[in-house]
């Protein structure tokens, strides 16, 4: 028990209690080979594991109770899947265990071997059979047998049996003995089981009798009778199934969702012999979990997709590392469901729909995840690690998962639908009008636009021609002027800043003239000459303006910069005089 040792790598207010961690539990398995079941009917749920072992042998069926191994049975071949299911109505209602391994399903009752189901043999290539019968009668030597089999392998529709394939791999000196050892036995060709699930027969109860559903390497799905293990139904797929989820009841309505090796997910239903829906994934599936009615698939591209049971994609979430395994967290007594995703960075992420609600950091990469009742605790999370470790965590009674507490990305509010008002009659009428008169409207708009541009261009040319701007654009006398009015009135000080903007040519023979309403303003001099302007320097020229009105009105004073001998002004400035705020003194 090392619960307290690993506190430091978990968040301080973790939602989980560390019940047990055994780094050397010697459990090497995947989520498909782990189940929780009350095997003895004593109200205590046990952990059943199909252990793949660490070498070529060492495959075992192990049962854990609490923190310790209760029993183990040797398995003959690698397990590919394990399920607990009720195969009959007998009391006490203890489940049987089915372990899929190669072409067989081993069924255990009370942890004792009870039945072995073998997949029906496949059709054998006739030519192959023919060649082997010749070999049996010693009509051909191993060398020519090899040649003929190679010929068949390259052309035939029906693939060779495992025996022939093995034979073709042998070195020359081993061939003879191989032929002698096998030639008397008939040739068999068999497929293997790739995934296994359970399907309730005709009742929805937790402990109702269930059929086994298996997917095979030769792209088929079989549904088996719970007691007789006869094939009740057989469905062909376009590809080999890798992950499977089954829901419903065989006699009523069911749905089998399979993620296949061609990167597609197929959804099968009771009434059709062919897949009903197909979801094309952008990368291969590495895990499949059903949450209520939706399917959550993990893909090799570090993505998690949510889909409806009709095959419509709902959302995609990007993960920080690649997925190693996936599991469903179904906390029945709290009505809480989520998807647990074991990542290559030694974290387990918990998703509700596309929202990340919890992160569990683990000591090692998790290869199998199983959530459910273990012992007497409903909220137990059992995980095994890449290094063969066993981790047991228990959900705290007080833990609540806040949808938004760790969610990166768009806020929850973004998915709230806005209450968009209904389209009004006016809106509809306008839309109709726009649709019907589109061409005319466009033309009217274009005409007005050209008119506007023309007017603007004319005004611009006029301004340039009459030098109405405070910048002189004439090449010979480039000048710039701005004016500042100071004072509150009735006396104002008018400062004109004049600058010669040429690089090296001084400006000469310039004069300034003012134009104003003589009833409103008086200026000491309304015309004066300006001295020579050195390029680049700023020449402030002051003059005083007296406002003659006390009626609070103001007007424009125009300033012209003239060159002696030219009739057009070089520059024009309009000065908007401020309203005189002081009392008229005169």
């Amino acid at each position, binding site marked *: 028990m090392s619960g307290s040792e690993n506190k430091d790598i978990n968040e301080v207010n973790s939602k989980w209690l560390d019940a047990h961690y055994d780094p050397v539990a010697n459990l090497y398995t995947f989520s498909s080979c782990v189940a929780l079941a009350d095997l003895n009917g004593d109200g205590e749920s046990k952990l059943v594991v199909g252990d793949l072992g660490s070498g070529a042998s060492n495959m075992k069926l192990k049962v854990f109770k609490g923190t310790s191994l209760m029993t183990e049975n040797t398995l003959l071949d690698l397990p590919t899947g394990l399920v607990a299911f009720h195969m009959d109505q007998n009391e006490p209602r203890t489940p049987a265990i089915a372990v899929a391994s190669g072409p067989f399903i081993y069924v255990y009752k009370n942890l004792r071997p009870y039945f072995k189901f073998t997949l029906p043999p496949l059709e054998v290539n006739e030519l192959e059979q023919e060649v082997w019968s010749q070999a049996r009668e010693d009509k051909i030597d191993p060398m020519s047998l090899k040649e003929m089999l190679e010929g068949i392998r390259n052309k035939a529709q029906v693939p060779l049996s495992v025996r022939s394939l093995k034979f073709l791999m042998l070195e020359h000196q081993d061939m003879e003995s191989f032929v002698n050892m096998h030639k008397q036995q008939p040739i068999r060709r068999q497929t293997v089981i790739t995934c296994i699930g359970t399907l309730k027969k005709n009742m929805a109860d937790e402990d109702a009798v269930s059929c086994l559903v298996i997917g095979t390497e030769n792209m088929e799905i079989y549904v088996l009778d719970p007691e007789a293990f006869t094939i009740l139904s057989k469905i062909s797929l376009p590809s080999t199934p890798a992950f499977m989820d089954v829901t419903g009841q065989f006699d009523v309505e069911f749905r089998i969702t399979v993620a296949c090796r061609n990167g597609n997910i197929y959804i099968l239903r009771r009434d059709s012999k062919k897949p009903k829906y197909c979801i094309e994934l952008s990368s291969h599936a590495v895990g499949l979990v059903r949450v209520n009615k939706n399917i959550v698939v993990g893909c090799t591209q570090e993505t998690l997709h949510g889909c409806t049971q009709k095959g419509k994609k709902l959302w995609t979430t990007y993960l920080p590392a690649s997925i190693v395994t996936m599991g469903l967290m179904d906390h029945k*007594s709290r009505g809480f469901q989520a998807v647990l995703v074991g990542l290559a960075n030694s974290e387990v992420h918990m998703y509700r729909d596309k929202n990340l609600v919890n992160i569990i950091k683990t000591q090692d990469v998790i290869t199998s995840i199983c959530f459910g009742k273990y012992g007497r605790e409903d909220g137990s999370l059992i995980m095994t690690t890449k290094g063969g470790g066993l981790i047991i965590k228990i959900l705290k009674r007080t833990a609540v998962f806040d949808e938004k507490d760790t969610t990166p990305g768009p806020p929850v509010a973004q998915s709230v639908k806005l209450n968009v008002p209904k389209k009004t009659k006016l809106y509809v009428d306008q839309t109709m009008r726009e649709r019907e008169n589109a061409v005319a409207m466009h033309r009217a708009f274009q005409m007005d636009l050209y008119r506007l541009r023309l007017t603007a261009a004319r005004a611009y040319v006029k301004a340039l021609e009459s030098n109405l701007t405070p910048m002189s654009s004439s090449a010979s006398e480039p000048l710039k002027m701005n004016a500042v009015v100071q004072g509150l009135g009735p006396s104002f000080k008018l400062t004109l800043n004049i600058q010669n903007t040429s690089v090296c040519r001084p400006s000469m023979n310039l004069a300034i003239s003012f134009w104003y309403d003589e009833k409103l303003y008086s200026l000491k001099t309304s015309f004066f000459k300006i001295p020579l302007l050195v390029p680049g320097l700023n020449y402030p020229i002051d003059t005083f303006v007296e406002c003659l009105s006390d009626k609070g009105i103001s007007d424009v004073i125009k300033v012209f910069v003239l060159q002696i001998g030219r009739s057009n002004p070089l520059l024009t400035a309009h000065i908007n005089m401020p309203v005189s705020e002081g009392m008229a003194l005169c």
Partner: protein
Amino acid sequence: MNLFHKLSNWLRLKRQEANVLCVGLDNSGKSTIINQLKPSSAQTQDIVPTIGFCVEKFSTSSLTFTVFDMSGQGRYRSLWEHYYRDAHAIIFVIDSGDKVRIVVAKEELDMLLHHSDVKHRRIPILFFANKSDLQDSLSSVKVSQMMGLDNIKNKPWHICASNALTGEGLQEGVDWLQDQIRSLKS
């Protein structure tokens, strides 16, 4: 067996009522322990899982001695706290054979100790490391260490290994509890 006899005797002198709250996870043996503590005439043979809670009253002529046997099932554990205020003592039962759930028992104990009706009271707590007869059960020392009992500073506490099926260890615990209540009330 009448293990609460002494306690009842003492309480009769004081003419006071003592409320004892019995808590612990489901299946730890609370009901079995309380059944053992009852006068033999009142003992029942079958113990079924407690739903909600059961109140057991052992009455003598002028005294009512009340034990609240709380259900330990997860969904009922939130009921416990409603009885903390009126409890004069707490019995906390731990299944020392259930190693996986010791952390859950510790979590529940920590919540109990931090509850406002318990936190600042010198309320005595008796721990039973029950089912000590089971093959690979934890010793009371180990249970006490895993439960972090040493951190309880402001309350008298005591742990004893027990076997509720035979009654072993219960007497020792009850004697301790009796002394505690006496010293607190006097």
